[in-house]
């Protein structure tokens, strides 16, 4: 029997597989396809203090082995989440994390404090890396001082596991991760989407309403893997790896690079049942390779 449990500070995952924010709705959308109890955790759609309509259509462009999006954090706000969605999802037999975003520090702090009060939410993922909102979002995540400010402020009001989601759109992601760690993050998750662009040559126009958008999908995996490797060597807190993971083998690669757990994002769109398949596949890999505990794989890259 392979041991698959992953212990993070104040957060125990029954296996290393979580689903990435913005790709899994509130979990309910996938309940027909996946037994949610087979997952280590699910991360809710990005939630802000106030209601956000998001960006205009078109919000998506297909790219080779990936896609760009500029959804722009469409959500009904944290109070709506607490009143309407939380009662429906709080008893899922898995960890339910909320991804929290904001356009200024006060908004992050207020939203995080409201979620701190929810008994069945053991952690938040602080989104300082959304490339699709004009103010805040990625702006906090691309400088050491920005990330320090927001993480420190949220840390004061948030008492459970604080995961900070990092942007890959920086010169040195390890420095940013160190800043998040110093400010009180319990873990870092990476990577959010890579800033990209698509053009319709016939129309001579951008494909996306916001001109630029975030690139995700299988095509970003090598970049994500490299960044997980760099960050895991730099920080002492656990690293959660994501970016293009579409199979159990992809997930194993992230664990070997230094991730303690992983998230599945865009692959959920192509196979809505993929998350549970990856969890099962990780166990099968361990059985095949005589690995008794998944934790043995973390950072197990042979150089």
């Amino acid at each position, binding site marked *: 029997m392979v041991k698959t449990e992953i212990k993070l500070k104040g957060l125990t995952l029954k296996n290393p597989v979580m689903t990435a924010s913005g790709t899994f709705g509130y979990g309910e*959308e996938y309940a*027909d396809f996946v037994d949610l109890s087979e997952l280590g955790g699910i991360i809710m759609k990005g939630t802000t203090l106030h209601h956000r309509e998001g960006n205009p259509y078109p919000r998506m462009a297909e790219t080779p082995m990936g896609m760009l999006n500029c959804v722009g954090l469409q959500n009904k706000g944290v109070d709506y989440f607490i009143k309407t969605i939380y009662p429906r999802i709080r008893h899922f037999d898995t960890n339910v994390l909320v991804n929290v975003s904001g356009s200024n520090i006060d908004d992050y702090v207020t939203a995080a404090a409201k979620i701190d009060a929810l008994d069945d939410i053991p952690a938040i993922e602080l989104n300082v890396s959304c490339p699709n909102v004009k103010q805040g979002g990625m702006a906090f995540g691309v400088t050491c001082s920005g990330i320090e400010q927001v993480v420190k402020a949220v840390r004061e009001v948030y008492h459970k596991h604080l995961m900070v989601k990092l942007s890959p759109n920086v010169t040195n992601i390890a420095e940013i991760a160190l800043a998040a760690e110093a400010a009180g993050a319990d873990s870092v998750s990476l990577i959010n989407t890579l800033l990209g662009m698509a053009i319709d040559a016939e129309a001579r126009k951008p494909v996306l309403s916001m001109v630029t958008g975030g690139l995700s999908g299988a095509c970003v995996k090598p970049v994500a893997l490299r960044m997980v490797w760099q960050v895991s060597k730099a920080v002492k807190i656990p690293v959660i790896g994501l970016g293009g993971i579409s199979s159990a083998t992809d997930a194993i690669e992230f664990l070997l690079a230094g991730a303690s757990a992983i998230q599945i994002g865009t692959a959920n769109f192509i196979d809505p049942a993929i998350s549970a398949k990856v969890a099962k596949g990780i166990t099968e890999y361990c059985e095949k390779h005589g690995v008794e505990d998944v934790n043995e794989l973390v950072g197990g890259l042979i150089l």
Partner: protein
Amino acid sequence: MKTIIDFQIIEKQSFPRAALLKLKSTTPLPEICGGQFVNVRVDGCDKAYLRRPISIHDVDYQNNTIDLLIQEKHEGTKTLCALPVGAKVNIVLPLGNGFTMPEKDDNVLLVGGGIGIAPLLYFAKTIHDNIQGKDAMNRVCTGVHFLLGGRTKDDLMLLERFRSVGDVFITTNDGSMGEKGFVTEHSLWNTMKINKIYACGPMPMMKALAKMAHEKGIWCEVSLENQMACGIGACLCCVENTKEGNLCVCKEGPVFNIERLLW
């Protein structure tokens, strides 16, 4: 309940820019409503990373088959149209909300433009099945009429299928079949009393039709096809800006009453 099924193509009919695939499932089909759609994985095409949303043209519960009428638009749909009989096709279904069933005494017109004719057949059959064998008092509605429009006669496929469930009126832009012009210009609008319109087709056609329906005070539902990624309401890419804000076409639609839209 939504499910993922590996279908096999058991029959295929090719058209100049489209193909009709009959797909058989080894497991029983879920309940499907007219106007719902499927999300098809495109294997063997490196330009199609995401699934392709395709409307459901017909369903046969006895034989466990669905029919998809697919237009070749870009690389993904071209790959699907080129699949041979015997090929396996991975499909997520059924997705979205279908058309609202008419009530008795309704005189309905199903308007399709181009490949937008596809979902109207199965919906018409479900209405038709409600008419057959019921006395006039309990009929769902008084009859089914189709108004199908194309650029040329080549766009108008499988007319015999439509004629088997209702009267078919036709317009083509070049006059190669039926009346020349757009669906909104057909002479039936002067002679028939229609009180419910169901439409699927190109955006300009549906907008023109919605405007006309609105002016005449006719109840009207349209089926949208905004570009999608997930097909199940998770990614929020396919939104339509409505009177209720941005709504996912895949989950809240694809069928919308025109009064909900900002058209």
